[in-house]
């Protein structure tokens, strides 16, 4: 089958087996190896076929096929759409799948190009109407347009939606706009140009300099300067070196890496090849968690296509540099997100962390120098190579450059992925992009950085986010999960939730983490069950600090953060649980009592009927009462009361 890299005629000789530095340029802008008007026209025709660039109007219906939209039924939408467009005889309109738009709650998402119309919550039954109204007559289907949660107004175009307006999508630019299963679309939108530039115009050490100039820091958690890491690996002595991509995205609440791998896998591959060239490695591994089957599938397709095009393999673009890439599927262990545990897992061992030093840069995979970065970090590399480190460094704050993708979830109106410049405030993310708190409730806290991060209260809403400001505030960037909580979230219960997670995932190698997380969890559980006693807060604090200082790896060292940060900002809530035996948020069932407001109760008897333990007594049309001795605090009565007469106190 003809593709972008098919030679135009016999005069054009470069191919994967006969590599040439101008390969990509020749096939997209050329031919440049020979002069022929016929060939130029033929090339242009091919380009037009896969044309996806916004400056060339091309009618396309894009159906999102990310994990979120697929589970909302986008496969059916795609199939129906393809059939309906064909049936309607609309020849100049292509129906294509794309990766994730990061706005999964609105899924399945359908975009109409070139206009850029955004339809959300599209079902297979809506397809006919879209074809009839939109594609045939150019009228939008009003009811499928997005409604702004704050103003209640409908947005016709993608670009008008507040969720996207404040974002600066660099890494996610192509996600949702190109078909991730077609390398041609990646190339035509500028893909692999950074690689060509690196291999043909830069020496390896110059690539490292460029990355250093950019100020890029690791996007997976710690925020270590990427260029420096590259330099250490490049300087390490060894006959064989490896480049590894950490795609073991395990933080609950974060899914940006999955989205990048599913929506734009080639950007990660390109970043890894550039890294391999810079540090002198010709083998790479992508370690993907087993829970992401679609990401693995898309990555497999992308690697095969890159190999077919000669972008992966021997003597890439006749530079003398060769690179091979393999996928390793994880087997379900959160600790494998820690770099040394991940390396052990690739080696087929139990995924337990190693003692550092030696660092992977010197002794990594199979004892060889190894460069480890995460998905989002690698996806930034082609952008840096294409536009230059200085350009990149002009974005963000003094010490944190570029953008960061956050996964905004929890009690916020718009949930999804938001790529924003470093230095933006939490308020802008939660209230402008996120559209504020659900059901008009009060903002209480935001958990940032997953189980390793911390909870920040309302006073910190105007904090400009970067690596260092977050650490000062007692949280951390982590992988970029942002879980928003309203007044109905209990902070002690939340700390207990995170500790349950880390305790479960503690690998057991070092004592502080193995024992410390268990004891902290025991205390937290006791407090939430109403058995808290004087001195618990102090014990928790002491334990948390010693685990933080003495645990072997990042998992253990950061596990106490949710406790320490909630103690720092919500100490009164802990005190209320322990001293007053009261849960202010009404979450901890042992510490709440359900009551009926006599002014609101109409005596409809509904609550008495639904109560599974018959704890509610009362005559029809008279105020009912709950017997606290019998009540199991299941909350069924409250959910069923039409008059909102039942409350927790």
């Amino acid at each position, binding site marked *: 089958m003809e593709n972008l890299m098919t030679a135009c005629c016999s005069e054009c000789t470069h191919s994967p087996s006969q590599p040439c530095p101008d390969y990509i340029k020749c096939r997209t802008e050329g031919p440049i190896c020979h002069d022929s008007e016929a060939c130029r026209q033929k090339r242009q025709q091919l380009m037009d076929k896969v044309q996806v660039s916004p400056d060339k109007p091309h009618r396309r219906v894009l159906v999102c096929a990310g994990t979120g939209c697929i*589970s909302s039924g986008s496969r059916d939408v795609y199939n129906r759409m393809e059939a309906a467009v064909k049936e309607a005889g609309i020849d100049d309109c292509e129906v294509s799948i794309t990766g994730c738009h990061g706005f999964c709650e609105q899924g399945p998402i359908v975009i109409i190009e070139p206009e850029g119309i955004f339809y959300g919550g599209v079902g297979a039954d809506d397809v006919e109407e879209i074809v009839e109204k939109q594609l045939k007559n150019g009228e939008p289907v009003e009811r499928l347009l997005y409604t702004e949660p704050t103003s209640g107004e409908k947005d016709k175009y993608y670009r008008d939606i507040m969720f996207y307006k404040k974002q600066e999508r660099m890494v996610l630019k192509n996600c949702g706009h190109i078909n991730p299963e077609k390398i041609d679309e990646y190339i035509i939108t500028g893909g692999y140009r950074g690689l060509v530039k690196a291999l043909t115009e830069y020496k390896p050490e110059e690539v490292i300099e460029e990355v250093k100039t950019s100020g890029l820091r690791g996007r997976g958690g710690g925020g270590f300067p990427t260029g420096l890491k590259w330099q250490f690996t490049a300087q390490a002595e060894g006959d064989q070196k490896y480049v590894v991509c950490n795609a073991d995205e*395990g933080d*609950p609440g974060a899914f940006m890496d999955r989205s990048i791998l599913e929506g734009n896998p080639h950007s990660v591959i390109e970043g890894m090849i550039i890294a391999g060239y810079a540090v002198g490695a010709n083998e790479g591994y992508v370690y993907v968690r087993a829970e992401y089957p679609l990401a693995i599938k898309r990555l497999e397709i992308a690697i095969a296509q890159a190999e077919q095009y000669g972008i992966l393999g021997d003597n890439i673009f006749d530079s003398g540099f060769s690179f091979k890439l393999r996928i390793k599927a994880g087997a379900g262990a959160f600790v494998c997100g820690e770099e040394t545990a991940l390396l052990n897992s690739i*080696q087929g061992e139990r995924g337990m962390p190693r003692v550092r030093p030696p660092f992977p840069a010197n002794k990594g995979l199979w004892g060889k120098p190894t460069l480890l970065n995460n998905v989002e970090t690698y996806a930034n590399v082609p952008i840096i190579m294409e536009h230059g480190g200085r350009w990149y460094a002009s974005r963000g704050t003094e010490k944190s450059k570029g953008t960061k993708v956050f996964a905004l*979830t929890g009690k916020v109106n718009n*949930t999804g992925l938001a790529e924003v410049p470093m230095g933006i405030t939490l308020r802008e993310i939660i209230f402008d992009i996120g559209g504020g708190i659900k059901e008009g409730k009060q903002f209480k806290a935001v958990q940032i950085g997953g189980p390793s991060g911390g909870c920040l209260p309302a006073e910190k809403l105007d904090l400009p986010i970067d690596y260092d400001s977050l650490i000062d505030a007692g949280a951390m960037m982590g992988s970029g999960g942002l879980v928003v909580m309203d007044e109905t979230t209990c902070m002690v219960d939340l700390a207990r939730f995170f500790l349950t997670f880390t305790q479960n995932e503690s690998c057991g190698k070092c004592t502080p983490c193995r024992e410390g997380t268990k004891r902290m969890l025991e205390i937290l559980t006791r407090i939430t069950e109403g058995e808290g006693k004087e001195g618990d807060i102090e014990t928790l604090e002491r334990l948390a600090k010693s685990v933080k200082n003495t645990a072997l790896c990042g998992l253990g060292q950061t596990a106490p953060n949710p406790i320490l940060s909630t103690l720092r900002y919500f100490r009164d809530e802990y005190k209320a649980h322990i001293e007053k035996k009261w849960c202010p948020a009404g979450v901890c069932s042992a510490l709440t009592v359900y009551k009926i407001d006599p002014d609101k109760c109409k005596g409809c008897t509904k609550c008495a009927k639904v109560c599974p333990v018959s704890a509610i007594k009362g005559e029809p049309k008279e105020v009912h009462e709950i017997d606290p001795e019998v009540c199991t605090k299941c909350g069924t009565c409250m959910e069923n009361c039409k008059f909102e007469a039942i409350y927790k106190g």
Partner: protein
Amino acid sequence: MACQCGQGQKQTDKDKKLQAVFARYRGQKGALIPVLQASQDIYGYLPREVMERIAKELRIPFSKVFGVATFYAQFHLKPRGENIIRVCLGTACHVRGGAKVFAKLKEELQIEDGETTEDLKFTLESVACIGACGLAPVMVINEDTHGRLTPEKVPEILDRYR
């Protein structure tokens, strides 16, 4: 004793597949985890005999095979149900009522976390995050993701797999 005809045949089919797995990975570095994954795909779980054969074929101690198989959540040493239900109890799902959905599933199936129903129809598991937070609360049955769940929706969804 119940009729066992056909069973011997079935066993050899699986054994042949296992042989192919060994052939594919023999001599490769770090092969243990992919071999365990492929073996579990064949048998549905990791029977002791299979792990013993893996140890022999890869020339590593049985204790190491056992150690790796018990370390990772993905591997199972007991037979599993025809349908695997994974309920997300990650942060976003937790905040939006994932626990209630999980409780309803336990009640409907009469099993606890990690257990399999007696008729081998369903295995129920809780997971920390499946990365579909926008649809919270979420569960995955086999390959299908079910989002925006409420306890009321549970029985109807289960019926589709019964």
